[in-house]
């Protein structure tokens, strides 16, 4: 299995990617840990984590179709 991870706003710039696929990942804690190794600037950045269009506060398990998004602070309007 693999999950899709979307980066928005300044995070897309930091990672150089709009969307990546991450294989064999059980939950969001594991995913974030791996992303922080891959994109070191991520650990100095504020963002919120969304799984399947819902903001999450705690570690969340990821099923096969999971779509994860990392959202920097909003600045619309």
């Amino acid at each position, binding site marked *: 299995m693999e999950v899709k991870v*979307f980066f*928005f*706003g*300044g995070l897309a*710039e930091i990672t150089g990617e709009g969307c990546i696929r991450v294989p064999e990942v059980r939950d969001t804690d594991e995913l974030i840990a791996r992303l922080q190794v891959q994109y070191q600037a991520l650990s100095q950045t504020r963002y919120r984590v*969304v799984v399947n*269009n819902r903001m999450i506060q705690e570690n969340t398990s990821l099923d096969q179709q999971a779509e994860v*998004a990392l*959202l*920097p*602070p*909003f*600045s*619309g*309007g």
Partner: protein
Amino acid sequence: MAKKNRNDLFMPGAITPGFIAEILHQHRGRTEIGAHSIFLGQTRADDLGGKKVCAIEFTSYEAMALEAMQEIREKIFEKYALTCMHVHHSLGKVEVGGVCLFVLTSSPHRKAAMEACSETVERVKAELPIWGKELLDDDSHQWKAANRSAGMQDQA
């Protein structure tokens, strides 16, 4: 009637005066309305340490934004006696002086219209996943922060 306009949140580029006039014109037949409250967010030529903002390029997590907007809409209609509500936000590039956010709330009476408009603007800015990339006059850019200046409650 009140709950329509679910998926027309985003517009490409600036929201024009002509578009706003067209929306207003469509309300002439709604003769139970006594008050419209409108908020327009306009792209400001901020000075960022000697560099000037020329335009803002907006992107969004659109699917989530539409869901969040629907949630805001429902809560605002529960709370205020509104006849209707229209919200539009730009995507893509908006030059300084261009309008990037439009909120219209209409009601028989002004108190409901004005309070609903104000609360909708606050919620749109806080809850919709939208990001503004400020394009500067030296061809560099900076990601817009909702509360850039210290002690500033609002950035319009």
